[in-house]
């Protein structure tokens, strides 16, 4: 799949626009993610974060604008196939008809990149990395939400990705599991040196893992910078999002 042997890639988004029907979901997004960086895109639900990720990995085509990986436009035929990319979906998106081992080794077995014995060994290694050693024979329906997400991360690792995209990796998880997933993302960067783009509305995760971050609101980037710069930004919407708290009045 890859002709590029570096461990990470540079991603540049230029004036990306996308509409579904009359609704404009992305309104001219531009930012750059440097090699090996963890870049977090944070914003409220429905702000276009997941749609943006789907464009980067080629699941959606932009109406206008461009996505460049190492300077190559992903809209050009064959460009996506030159780079090893993986995405961890919000739901995990494990194939329910396959067991954990088959799910994790699917990329290798379908592309016939390794022998069955080698695939078994690689699957066991990747499951051990995400703390799920020995669960190869379990079916996805037997796993908890957190375990499914970690299997999805193991499946992404098999690709040895230069770019790994996380779509809401901690949604539906308890705070303890959120910490584990956050640590996993940091550990994987140390382990694989890949570039990571994390989409989330989880403030703890975002500030815990980000090298740089962008705040997305209604399809537009309000601000991008380091976590400290984001915290210090006086934009009322950013401050409202960062400091939103539930306050119930007891009658």
């Amino acid at each position: 799949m890859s002709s590029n042997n570096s461990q990470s890639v540079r991603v540049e988004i230029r004036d990306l626009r996308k509409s579904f029907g009359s609704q404009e979901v992305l309104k001219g997004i531009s930012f750059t993610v440097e090699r090996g960086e963890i870049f977090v895109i944070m914003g409220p639900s429905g702000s276009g974060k997941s749609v943006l990720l789907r464009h980067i990995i080629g699941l959606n085509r932009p109406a206008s604008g461009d996505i460049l990986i190492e300077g190559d436009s992903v809209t050009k035929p064959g460009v996506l196939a030159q780079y090893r990319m993986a995405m961890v979906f919000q739901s995990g998106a494990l194939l329910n008809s396959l067991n954990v081992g088959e799910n994790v080794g699917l990329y290798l077995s379908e592309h016939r990149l390794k022998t069955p014995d080698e695939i078994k060994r690689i699957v066991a290694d990747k499951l051990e990395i995400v703390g799920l050693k020995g669960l190869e024979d379990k079916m996805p329906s037997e796993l908890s939400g957190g375990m499914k997400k970690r299997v999805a991360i193991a499946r992404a690792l098999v690709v040895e990705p230069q770019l790994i995209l996380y779509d809401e990796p901690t949604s539906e998880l308890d705070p303890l599991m959120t910490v584990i997933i956050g640590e996993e993302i940091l550990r994987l960067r140390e382990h694989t040196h890949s570039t990571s783009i994390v989409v989330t509305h989880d403030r703890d995760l975002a500030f815990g893992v980000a090298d740089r971050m962008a705040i997305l609101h209604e399809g537009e980037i309000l601000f991008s910078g380091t976590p400290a710069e984001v915290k210090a930004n006086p934009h009322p919407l950013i401050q409202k999002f960062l400091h939103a708290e539930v306050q119930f009045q007891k009658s």
Partner: protein
Amino acid sequence: MFQNIGEMIILFWRTLQALPLALRHRAKVFEQLFEIGNASLLMACILSLFIGGVLALQAGSVLVERGMANFIGGMVGVSMAKELAPVMMSILIAGRIGSAMAAEIGSMRVYQEIDALKTMNINPIHYLVLPRVLAITIVLPILVVFSIMVGWLGGALVSHFNAHINLSLEGYFNNLREIVSIGDVLNGVIKSFAFALVIGVVACHQGLITIGGPRGIGRSVTKAVVNSIVLILLLDYVLTRFLMYFEAF
């Protein structure tokens, strides 16, 4: 509607283009063959036995009154081979297997499993559509041949044991052998091959375009079955005319 037809033609073409990969996906094809055969064989057997029986019962009473009871074998034989077995088995498979295919692929689409395949550079047509379409086009003609024979047997049993008809088994099968040719059976097999392609492509297409959660999956299943049955009946007329033209020579 025209967009759907266009998409189905494109899906059919891409599936044909993927045929050289069939050997590589043989494990998935065998899995589908087993599932389809396992789910349909008993039902096909019961259905065919009773279709043959009812045919003999209905036609028998008319033919006996006119002193032509000996012709029941040929009549049941030709009807089963050329029309009833291919059409009824195809409708059965559309309801039982086409619906399952649309539901499975539809839920994979809704729950992003197909997106996950794409991100791993795995073509959903090669991985999901090819094994299913190939399996159904292998199984349905076999099931139709089986159905034809069970239908003949059903007709024979009713003709023999029904007191009003009371035809010997030998008489029934002699007439059947005399009237039914291998071409009649081939006629049914050709039709069933075409119907299988229709069921496979329609069901997989409906699955692949599913949107909107569990309700969307339900809608896709209904559309897959209804569209398959409508297309089978339309295609049946066209193929019957086409094959009649060849029989004339």
